[in-house]
């Protein structure tokens, strides 16, 4: 008992030790920053009459080193030294606060999406952006089946998007008019949409077969290669695909046979409206909204069907699946096929919206963006995909608008060029703070008594 007062002396002593340690750490950080930044920032080469000259910028180095050291100090004082009360993970509390309002988020978003084009102040630019975001939401939802539910990492998803886009482009510009005459053209989109989906699903199965036995990293590499193969074939098979020049003059969609043109026989004249180009944009917006909601509806239904549960079980444990009599081959193939089908639909839509397709649109970066949306949103979460698509695609577009930065920053600064950097940094930060994505709850597909969300740290990520 007599030894108790001792502990009171500990505090100031510990403080001084901490201060010394912090000073040492900050100094060390500054030295490292200097070593790294010295050559990179401090010495700048520039060409002078055919030869290279060296410019020394030690002042700038000092500023940078000071920023790094200051940041480290701030971290010490504000973040690291705080006693952290680590919240123990609540063992699936019956009703999580998140779940309470989650019920209303989805209907509210859908309602907002439906009225969006008619909200005052919403112009063509915003509707265009909304179409873009919805396209990515749809692609995200499609990929979510493969990556989020079945746990198969697919880096070549954009290949199916390309199959859908080229299917529509080729059928609508060449084959349908040749087979059925020009009268078919206004209907081409609605005829081709299911065909594009089926073709993409077929390619999903074709990709699925060779990769059935692959897992994890190997699966990722093969799917990545598949995506590139499709793109390279599109570039080089000029007779069929038009090569790098792509396919132009793709028919725009019509309002169920009524083209969006001025004058007699057009959509505006039929409904007695004044002709406005935005009618077509708004129609496109509703087409993609319906397609995206259809994707979501099908996915939500599939999760409650045996096939969807088998996907999730496959992600959790493939061997256990086999021991329960689940044919893992066909389960994986259906995941690839259905995921690919939605990409095919989205590709068709992309072609009709752009009126032009070329291999340029289907580079690996697109696959990467779609995968980022799925991962960032939280694997398997539908609402997470929506949030992530808005954040990522929105961020890309916001950078186009930051023209005021041009006034602040030195001449030649173009914010658009920094958008990949900023989005990359945002991805790193979000993954650091929310490693399992925005939505870290899995909703059970069937409930006996009360619905409880499942924390994702229990949910497997899949092994390919």
């Amino acid at each position, binding site marked *: 008992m007599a030894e108790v007062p001792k502990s009171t002396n500990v505090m100031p002593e510990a403080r001084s030790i901490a201060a010394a340690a912090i000073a040492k750490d900050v100094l060390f950080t500054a030295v490292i920053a200097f070593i790294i930044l010295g050559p990179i920032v401090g010495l700048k080469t520039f060409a002078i009459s055919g030869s290279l000259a060296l410019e020394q910028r030690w002042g700038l180095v000092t500023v940078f080193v000071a920023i790094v050291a200051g940041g480290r100090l701030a971290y010490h004082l504000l973040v690291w030294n705080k006693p952290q009360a680590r919240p123990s993970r609540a063992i699936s509390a019956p009703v999580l606060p998140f779940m309470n309002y989650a019920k209303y988020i989805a209907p509210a978003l859908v309602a907002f999406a439906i009225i969006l084009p008619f909200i005052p102040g919403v112009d063509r630019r915003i509707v265009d952006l909304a179409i873009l975001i919805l396209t990515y939401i749809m692609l995200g939802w499609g990929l979510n089946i493969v990556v989020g539910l079945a746990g198969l990492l697919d880096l070549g998803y954009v290949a199916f998007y390309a199959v859908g886009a080229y299917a529509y482009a080729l059928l609508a510009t060449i084959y349908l008019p040749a087979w059925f005459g020009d009268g078919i053209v206004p209907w081409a989109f609605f005829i081709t949409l299911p065909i594009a989906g089926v073709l993409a699903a077929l390619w999903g199965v074709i990709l699925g077969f060779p990769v059935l036995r692959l897992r994890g990293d190997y699966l990722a590499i093969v799917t990545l290669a598949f995506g590139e193969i499709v793109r390279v074939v599109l570039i080089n098979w000029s007779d069929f695909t038009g090569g790098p020049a792509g396919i132009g003059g793709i028919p725009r969609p019509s309002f169920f046979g009524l083209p969006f043109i001025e004058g007699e026989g057009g959509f505006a004249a039929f409904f007695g409206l004044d002709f406005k180009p935005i009618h077509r944009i708004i129609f496109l917006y509703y087409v993609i909204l319906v397609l995206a909601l259809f994707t979501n509806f099908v996915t939500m239904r599939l999760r409650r069907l045996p096939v969807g549960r088998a996907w999730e079980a496959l992600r959790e444990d493939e061997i256990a699946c086999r021991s329960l009599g689940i044919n893992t081959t066909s389960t994986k193939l259906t995941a690839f096929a259905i995921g690919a089908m939605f990409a095919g639909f989205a590709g068709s839509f992309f072609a009709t919206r752009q009126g032009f397709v070329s291999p340029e649109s289907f580079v690996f970066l697109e696959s990467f963006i779609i995968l980022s949306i799925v991962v960032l949103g939280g694997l398997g979460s539908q609402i997470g995909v929506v949030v992530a698509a808005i954040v990522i695609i929105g961020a890309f577009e916001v950078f186009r608008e930051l023209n005021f930065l041009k006034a602040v920053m030195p001449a030649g600064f173009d914010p658009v060029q920094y958008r990949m950097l900023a989005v990359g940094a945002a991805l790193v930060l979000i993954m650091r703070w929310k490693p399992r994505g925005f939505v870290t709850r899995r909703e059970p597909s*069937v409930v006996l008594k009360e619905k409880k969300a499942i924390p994702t740290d229990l949910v497997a990520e899949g092994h390919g």
Partner: protein
Amino acid sequence: MSASGQEALLRVEHLTMRFGGLTAIGDLSFTAARNDITAIIGPNGAGKTTVFNCLTGFYKPTEGSVILTHVDDKQFLLERMDDFRISQRAKVARTFQNIRLFAGMTVLENLMVAQHNTLMRASGFTVTGIFNSPTYARASHEAVEFSEYWLEKAGLVDRADDPAGELPYGDQRRLEIARAMCTKPVLLCLDEPAAGLNPRESEDLNRLLLNIRDEQKIAILLIEHDMSVVMGISDHIVVLDYGVKISDGSPAEVRNDPAVIRAYLGVEDEEEAEVVVERAVAAVAKKPARAKVAAKKSPARKKGVRK
């Protein structure tokens, strides 16, 4: 209740499994009767799990055949079937030594996944199910009820909506058995179901297994180390050592078999050498690889007195 009086559900004939030069199972033959609990016991590394993997299609045996006969005399040659078809068609369910639950899915979902094939048919292979056809809605409702039935048997009904990964160890063991039962098997293969259980959980498990045998009339084949479980509930015991059957019979017979005592309690070096040679000559004289494997017997095994 001995195996001899009853009709054989499972006949294992001359089962041999070699991995390269190592013979994990050598010429093993035994039968498991309908409505019996048959136990396969043996020291570590005796090849028990390998036998299970051969029966359930996870390994393709090098030689021999495994014949399962349903009540309607339909026969299945398990050694020729894919692992998932064994569960789907021949109706053999299994559990794993290291529990393999779907940790991120709820307890109920785990049991629903086990009824995949029934539900898949009811959902018209997804085509009609996606429109929530009445057939699927009914089948789905029945599947939940059937799951609930097994949850009650396993004493897990209160935890039906919890993620399986959050259950305590003993509950996870019972859930895995319940999940296997949801595939409506004729033979349930349990790989060390009592491993890591405390005595009370062990008793719960025994009750569950006896219930499966007596009420459900389903045969159980089990691998076990825990002798209290084995001797307490088995009708028929097969003892393996180094992949070779050294004893086969009722618990009382096996308990008093000198070969079993030798294998379990260990013997002196000279004696053991004799035993090894004897066994090698008698049981697998035609396979020279056996003697080599047996000679590698580690000293630890002699001391390893198991309960």
